[in-house]
Structures are given as C-alpha cells and as structure tokens.
C-alpha cells in the first residue's frame, strides 16, 4: 500500500534521507530550510535506523563534518540556504577534490549578501559552475515538487556514490516551504561495515593488515600528479554528461516557441504554457531536472523546431547562459526573471514571451 503524507519540501527531503539509509546529517539553522534539521531532530532516527543528527557550530563546521563522515564511506548530508551554502564552499571544494560522495541541499533565498529570506534561483552559477575554488563540478538536481524533494534524496545518494562526487539538490524557498502530497518510499537499510569495505574500499575505517592505508586528501604537491587527478575528474564529469542528463518536456511536440525553466519557475511556466495555448500561442516547456549535466542535446534539437526560447528564472539571468551555449546561437534566446525574493506570475511569463520572443 502506498504511504502518502502531506509534507513541506524541507520535511520531505529529511524523511526521505532517513529512508534512503542516511548515516549522518550535519547542519546549521538558516531560513528557509531550518525544518530539515528540526524534522530530523524530532524524528530521532538514531533510535530507529541509527542515523546521527548533529547541529554544528557553523555551516563551515557542518560541511567539514560531512567531509569527515564521507571519508569513512558513510552516507552523509547537510542542508542550508544560500548564505550558508556560500560558507560551505570551501568544504565542498575539498570533498569534490577528494572525490567523496555526499548530499547537499540548498533551499535558495534571494541574495547577494544576507539578501532576503524569500525564494530565489540566484545560486545557479554557484551550483553549476563549481562554487568553490578549483576545477570541479557538482551533480545538480533541481526538484520542482515536494515529491521530487523526497525522491532526489535517494537518487542523490545513489549518484553521489556512483561517481564519488558531491550531489547538490538545488531547491528554493517555494519548494522547501510549500506542502504537497508525497508518496514515501520504503526504508533502505544503512550500509553495513561489510558493504562499506566492499563498495567503498577507499574509505578510512581503520587500516587492516590486508591492505595499504587509505588516505583521504585533495592535496598533491606534484603538479603532474595533480593535473592527472583533475583530468580524471574531467572524465568523470564527461561521463555524467553522457549518462545522467535528466529533463522533462511539456507540450513540446508542436511547439513554435519554448520556455526553459527549472524548479518552482517550471511550475509557474507550466501554467503560463496553458494560458498561452488558450490564446493560440504554440509554446512548450523544457524543464531541466539536472542542471549539471545540463540537457544540451534536447535543447539543441528543439532549437531547430522553435522560433525563439525564453529562459525563465528567479534571477537576473544565469541559466540563460547555458541555454544560449546549448542552442549554439541557432535561435533567439531571451531571459525573463523576477528576483530579490519576488516570484513571477504565469501572466507575467506569458507577457514576457509575447514581448521578448514573439513580438521582439
């Protein structure tokens, strides 16, 4: 029988993490994502699955706890919102450099600086282009519903361990705070010690006589070795681009125009497509689900069919750059967005489509 609950996005990702067999959560309060840790603390998963939940002294400490836990082959995660994710960038860079799996959730609020506590999508660059120092990428999942907040916890861990790479769930204050019906998956057991030894032989669980010591580091003072290491990372990112692109198309079959939007903007844009179609405008929606890897090929294919593309984001225009790169200047691409915590209405999206793409 299906297990259905009405939950906030922040609660859904927390509950789904427990069910995904998460070993440890390390966090620090920040609006609009504090419910993640509040939910976990209230659930006391230590008494059921054995999962550790710890409130750290800062986001910096929290991500470094994730670094320590991930080094042991454990399923560990953290969550925060934009200013806190900025603080975590140092640790994220180390985790990416040391090739460790972990799950990071960003429930984005408007910036820059302390900005606003209202929803935004202005962390796209930070999420998809590295964020911290050095040549690295995160695998970025963008949920557009509370259901996906739940589903991406397990998927995120799966992908993180598959590629030994941090996975970021790039959500926003809308998805984090709104309540929807969620179908919860059954509980997965946490990794056993034997599974850790077998599946993550690189992990630091104590040097046994049958193997050399395991070292988790992102340091190599030999530049040639470091170059080899970064080349290896690049190959991993290429494999992600080949294997992990996820997206959804809505009414694209006969589309003459296209909206590209992710997360909550995609929800708004879906409504905008319906309004526009009622007015006789043949418009479709492409929703990237992975932001890295970005759905370049489907966009390039659609660019041969449509007369113009509108990228809709709650930002000054960040993803629009990737849309332009993907379509290789074959078709007009414009950006429409509200920002600073303002959520666009479907009517505004339709108006922007008419002005910037159809009339422009």
């Amino acid at each position, binding site marked *: 029988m299906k297990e259905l609950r009405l939950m906030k996005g922040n609660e859904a990702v927390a509950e789904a993490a427990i069910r995904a067999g998460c070993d440890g959560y390390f966090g620090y309060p920040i609006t609009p994502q504090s419910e993640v840790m509040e939910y976990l603390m209230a659930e006391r998963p230590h008494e059921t699955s054995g999962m550790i939940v*710890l409130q*750290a*002294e800062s986001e910096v400490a929290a991500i470094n706890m994730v670094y320590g836990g991930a080094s042991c082959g454990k399923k560990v995660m953290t969550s925060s919102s934009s200013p806190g994710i900025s603080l975590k960038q140092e640790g994220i860079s180390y985790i990416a450099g040391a090739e460790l799996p972990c799950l990071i959730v960003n429930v984005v609020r408007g910036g820059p600086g302390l900005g606003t506590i209202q929803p935004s999508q202005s962390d796209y660059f930070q999420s998809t282009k590295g964020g911290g120092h050095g040549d690295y990428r995160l695998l970025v999942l963008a949920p557009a519903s509370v259901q996906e907040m739940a589903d991406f916890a397990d998927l995120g861990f799966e992908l993180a361990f598959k590629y030994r790479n941090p996975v970021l769930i790039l959500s926003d204050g809308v998805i984090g705070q709104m309540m929807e019906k969620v179908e919860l998956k059954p509980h997965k057991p946490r990794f056993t010690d034997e599974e850790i030894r077998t599946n993550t032989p690189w992990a*630091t669980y*104590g040097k046994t006589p049958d193997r050399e010591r395991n070292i988790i580091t992102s*340091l190599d003072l030999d530049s040639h070795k470091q170059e080899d290491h970064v080349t290896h990372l690049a190959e991993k990112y290429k494999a992600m681009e080949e294997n992990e692109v996820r997206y959804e198309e809505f009414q694209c079959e006969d589309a003459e125009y296209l909206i590209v939007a992710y997360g909550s903007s995609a929800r708004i844009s879906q409504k905008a497509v319906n309004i526009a179609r009622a007015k006789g405008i043949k418009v479709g929606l492409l929703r990237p689900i992975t932001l890295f890897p970005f759905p370049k090929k489907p966009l390039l294919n659609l660019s041969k069919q449509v007369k113009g593309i509108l990228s809709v984001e709650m930002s000054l225009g960040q993803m629009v750059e990737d849309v332009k790169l993907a379509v290789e200047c074959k078709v007009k691409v414009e950006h429409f967005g509200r920002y600073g915590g303002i959520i666009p209405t479907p009517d505004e999206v339709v108006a922007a489509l008419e002005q910037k793409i159809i009339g422009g």
Partner: protein
Amino acid sequence: MSDIITKEQIRQPENLVYTKTKLLTDKALSYCPGCGHGTAHRIVMEVIEELGAQANTIGIAPVGCSVLAYEFMNIDMQQAAHGRAPALATAVKRLMPEKYVFTYQGDGDLAAIGTAETIHACNRGENITIIFINNGIYGMTGGQMAPTTLPNMKASTCPYGRDVKTMGNPLKITELIAQLPGVHYVTRQAVHTPGNVRRTKKAVRKAFDLQKENKGLTFVEIVSNCNSGWKMTPVQSNKWMEENMFPFYPLGDIKVDGQLVK
C-alpha cells in the same frame, strides 16, 4: 670474564632496545632537521602500536607543516581543510564510536582559523584526542606570527617583535578549553629531552585510554621548537624554548579526571 665483545655481537635482534615503530612509514620525514614534529609523530604511532589499534584508528591531518602527516603515519588518515580537523573528527567518531580518532594540529590551525571548531568540539565533549603542536609560529608558510607567538617575539609578519597593543596577546587556548565541561583531560608537554618524550608518551597513552572509556575530549599540547622559523640551530632552539616558551606555556597537567589542576 671478558669485556671484549664486538659491535656485531651487540647488534643482534635479541639485544634490540629501541627502533622506529613500524607504524611510521619508511618515507623520510619532510620536517626541518631537529623539528619536534617527527618526535611527536613517533610518540603517537608508538602509542597506537602499543594499543594494537592500527586497524581501529583514524587520524586527521591539518593544514600546516604536518599537512603531509599521512605520508608518515601508517594508519588510515584524512587531510582536513585549515582549522577544520575537529569537525571531521567529530563526524568520524560519531559515525564509528568504537574507533580511536585523533587530530594532529598546529597552533595556527587549532588556535586561529580553527578556533570555533576546536572550542565547539571540546564543548560538546567529543570522544576524540587532540594533539596540539605549539611552536608559536606558522612554519609551513615561512615563519609568520601565530596566535601563540610570544610578546615581542619576532616573526616574518611582526619583524620588530609582536606588539601586543596592536597585534593582540598570545592565546592560551589550552587553558581556555580546559574550562569547558566536555573536556576531560588536558596536559601540556614537550618532546625535546628524553624525560619529556617519556612524559609525553604517557600523556598520549592516557588520552587514548580515556578516549576508549568515552570520558570526553582529551587534549595533549606539545610545546615544540621551530628552529627554521625562529632562525636558530635545533639545539639552540630547544634551549630558547625552555627559557622563553615554558615560562609562558608551563608544562604539566592542566585538567585531570575532569577537574582543573590547582
């Protein structure tokens, strides 16, 4: 009876008194000649060997001179970002409470950039051992002023000596963390003479034993030399350390069995 015995006769396995522990790798240490880091590394590894805990110990290396500690310590190790070792150690110990977990940190790492991580790991009473090497200087980056640099002591970023009015006072972080209820055992030792080495080893052993008993955080400071940074010979630096560092950072137990030593 004859006193005539050749060196070959003495150098037999059955006559062995002391040799480097197998828990140190064969790699030549990257430290400057005479640096106390090597001795401190050896003491920690000897204790782990005595405990038979190679398979049950995870060490966390810092950023600083001992950033490459994992090259020398023959155990599973993680290399932390600057100052963050206690955060890593917290998670490792929480996730694997049956393991010995220690951090090995210098003064810049532990008492400047990592102050928050240090104090909060101590305050939570994490069952980890912190080995703190205090040589009053940033060695790795070339001898800059550290949080523990003595008043009027010269360093490359205080070339006329540390002026406490503008550069702040040396931070006695060990006394500071000893105040915290989560901290069970705090001691300050040195490794420049045979007697000090023996006392430090006892202290490290005690810290690991207490960790096994889940007593809370155990903290061993080792006041050490940085002859390169201090611009002295190793032997001179050890003498200078006795005359200048020890009066400010006196050796001995600071907290035992959770009680401050009067």
